[in-house]
């Protein structure tokens, strides 16, 4: 693992917040890369981006700012993949249930 590191701050725009489906997709993407990934919400310990149980601790509602950081081989590439996951809307879940 090299010392390469890439970081970006994102704001959760999804009205449902950072919920389980994007979390699962995030973890899946994070595991594809040989680097470590952390997701940090201000004032909280960093969550492990490769563990959905860890991400579930974030309680990132719409508007929450999160710092995504990848460290190690292919960190920049990993960060881009993770940002793509967070940009998806996952709105098929928002259809009203009757």
């Amino acid at each position, binding site marked *: 693992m090299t010392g390469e590191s890439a970081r970006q701050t994102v704001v959760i725009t999804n009205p449902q917040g950072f*919920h389980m489906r994007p979390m699962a997709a995030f973890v899946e993407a994070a595991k594809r890369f040989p680097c470590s990934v952390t997701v940090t919400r201000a004032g909280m310990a960093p969550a492990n981006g490769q563990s959905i149980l860890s991400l*579930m601790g974030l*309680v990132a509602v719409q508007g929450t700012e999160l710092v995504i950081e990848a460290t190690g081989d292919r960190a920049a590439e990993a960060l881009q993949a993770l940002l793509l996951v967070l940009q998806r809307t996952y709105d098929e879940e928002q259809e*009203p249930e009757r």
Partner: protein
Amino acid sequence: MRMSEFIIRKAVSANLAGVQKEAVIREMVENIRLAGYFKGNEEDVVKAILKRELLSSTGIGDGVAIPHAKHASVDRLVGTVAVSTKGVPFDSVDNDPVYVLVMLVSPQERPSDHLRALEGVSRCLKDREFVQSLRKAGSPQEIWDLICKHDRGA
């Protein structure tokens, strides 16, 4: 949000009868209905949860699943816990059967409650010893006591 704040004590099951995904989801929804927490048709809730499972399984690995849905038949977020001693195929991320299930049903417009409940669930499920104890629990009362004990310590 602590698990004991939204888990319906009377809906907890220590020994699911079903051995298939749909059957255990149905069983857990029925347990919540029997406890008196749905104002609508529980079949709609079953359908909503199954529909969510089709998008991607809520089997998160290590024998745990968190089936859930938003549905108008509840006024507040409710949940239940169930244990399968046999294990249930759940299309989990690690392909292993699930033994511990936490179900959440939340009102349509309360995404923050849902996320706060997930936080409470994660706090418990991250504790492997807690999960092992749940799997060995012999009765709903024992499961409830484990949840309350964990919440007090958290």
